[in-house]
């Protein structure tokens, strides 16, 4: 009786998009407008009261952004999505829906540095307290749970250094604690790993990286897995209590298995305001159409470069879970069997000076602070993003003086290797 579920590549092109109902435009139009006219007064009232689906104002929703939302939700196997201005904004809106002042959440300490900053510092102003746990020691998550814990936050493949997190093991901790598991799936993308299949309740993305994939647009996205029972214990009042913002509506009861995405939209995005530009949504949508092709090429190139570096006499170590000797290799085979991503670090025997020399000598690699571009990218964290830290702090953050981070692009792999070779020996 059920319709066939299309494959990933088909969804990457078609999910959420259909020919424009009024013009027949086949590509998704850029609805570059702040506002949308109402059919009549009753229609306006229904929209504002959340009683009808539709468009009001681009800070709350926009038809171009909506295609992106449905596209990523479908690729992740979730019930709904919400596109926002950046990955950072996505994290703020998720926590805004879950936390009240004085609450705690447990986060993996192997996270993107920007997330560590956001959780350690800016969240303090909201009274949201992060408790760090070690993804290499699952029991540390268990120990970090208290009666105030409202969520667990991890990254599937952690930036910068090829750490694969055991999502299923941590989802079991979350289930026992009765809290949702939030997974940042930016580095893996749903092509390599679908955290919802392994127990995630919410997925967040920086679309800026591999999903957009061309280094041209900042964006973020929240996916609701539709798996968490927000009303069971009444610990999530944004979802389970009558909302004064909307004449007493209870969001979970009204919107069922996509209530979390609605809460992030109508309570978070509406009032905090980090809306995504429709133009950026269009650029990112265009990128997603080729995600399966690009991601496989990224991974194949990264594997070739990692193997080549591992045998290089100027290289001390390579941290890439695709390599058979890597400590995360078995987890990579379980969670990202098609490839271990395209961002990894390696260490130079020549230390800090060798790192500076390498980034100064590259001609094809771009020396910059992004990842997940068609172009190959390189950064020496000790002399750039982590410059202000002491040597001990740098090493703890995985940014010791000898560390170089690569984001391998989709150029010809021989050209990538030739550029690294000339820069290493030059």
């Amino acid at each position: 009786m059920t319709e066939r579920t299309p494959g990933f590549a088909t969804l990457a092109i078609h999910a959420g998009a259909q020919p424009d109902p009024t013009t027949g435009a086949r590509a998704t139009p850029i609805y570059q407008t702040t506002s949308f006219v109402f059919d009549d007064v009753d229609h306006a009232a229904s929209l504002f009261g959340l009683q009808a689906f539709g468009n009001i104002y681009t800070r709350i929703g926009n038809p171009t952004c909506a295609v992106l939302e449905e596209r990523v939700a479908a690729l992740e196997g979730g019930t709904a999505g919400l596109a926002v201005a950046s990955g950072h904004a996505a994290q703020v809106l998720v926590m805004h829906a879950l936390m009240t002042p004085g609450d705690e959440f447990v986060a993996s300490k192997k996270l993107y540095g920007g997330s560590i900053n956001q959780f350690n510092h800016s969240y303090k102003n909201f009274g949201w307290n992060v408790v760090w746990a070690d993804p290499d020691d699952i029991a540390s998550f268990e120990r970090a749970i208290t009666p105030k814990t409202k969520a667990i936050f991890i990254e599937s493949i952690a930036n910068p250094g090829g750490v694969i997190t055991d999502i299923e093991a941590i989802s079991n901790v979350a289930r026992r604690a009765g809290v949702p598991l939030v997974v940042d799936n930016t580095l893996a993308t749903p092509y390599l790993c679908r955290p919802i299949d392994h127990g995630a309740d919410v997925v967040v993305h920086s679309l800026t990286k591999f999903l957009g994939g061309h280094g041209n647009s900042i964006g973020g996205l929240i996916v609701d897995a539709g798996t968490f029972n927000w009303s069971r214990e009444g610990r999530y009042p944004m979802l389970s209590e009558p909302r004064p913002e909307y004449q007493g509506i209870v969001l979970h009861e009204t919107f069922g298995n996509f209530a979390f995405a609605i809460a992030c939209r109508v309570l978070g995005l509406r009032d905090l305001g980090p809306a995504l530009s429709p133009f950026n949504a269009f650029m990112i949508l265009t990128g997603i159409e080729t995600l399966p092709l690009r991601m496989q090429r990224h991974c194949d190139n990264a594997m070739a470069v990692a193997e080549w570096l591992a045998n290089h006499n100027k290289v001390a170590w390579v941290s890439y879970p695709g390599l058979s000797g890597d400590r995360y290799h078995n987890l990579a085979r379980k969670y990202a069997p098609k490839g271990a991503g395209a961002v990894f670090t390696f260490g130079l025997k020549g230390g800090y000076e060798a790192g500076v020399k390498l980034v100064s000598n590259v001609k094809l690699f771009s020396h910059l602070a992004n990842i997940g571009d068609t172009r190959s990218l390189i950064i020496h964290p000790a002399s750039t993003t982590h410059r202000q830290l002491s040597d001990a702090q740098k090493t703890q953050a995985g940014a010791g003086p000898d560390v170089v981070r690569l984001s391998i692009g989709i150029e010809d792999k021989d050209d990538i290797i030739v550029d690294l070779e000339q820069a290493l020996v030059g």
Partner: protein
Amino acid sequence: MNHDTYSDQYIRGILNTVKTIAMVGVSPRENRPSYFAFKYLLERGYRVIPVNPGQAGKDILGQKVYATLADIPEPVDMVDIFRASQFAAAVVDEALALAPRPRVIWMQLGVRDDAAAARAEAAGVKVVMNRCPKIEYGRLSSEISWIGVNSRTLSSRRAPLLGKGVQRMSLDRQTTGGGSTGASERAAREQE
């Protein structure tokens, strides 16, 4: 039939052919899910008749409220049950006692009674359980896509507009299956 999943064709066939819906358990309060669904279906052109003994004789959105299904003085194509599962069987039996019988009995999201469903099906009545007609209409017409919901449909055909206005879409849309939401469905079964 299997009531864990329904094909889009089955649901569309029902929503595209019923015209008069008796909705049992509609609340007159604007913030209740039943009011949402009632108002939405009215705005999509269905004749929706509210049934609620506590509101009998009053109006909800201009529609006269009846105390019971038997009080409705005209035939209904579909009975939509907005009551908790333990009350569903009694409503199903009232619906099956109507003459003429409704063609469809629909139980809302979270409402399910397999034994009552089997009685209805034995009488030749189509049954839908644990679904919301508003969400299903929104999904199959593509309206729900405007709020980022995974409609689980794909289409290379232009979606037709419904009547006047620009933000109302018709159910006469050709689709194939889209992205599945298996994790959510498994979780719902575990939570039952």
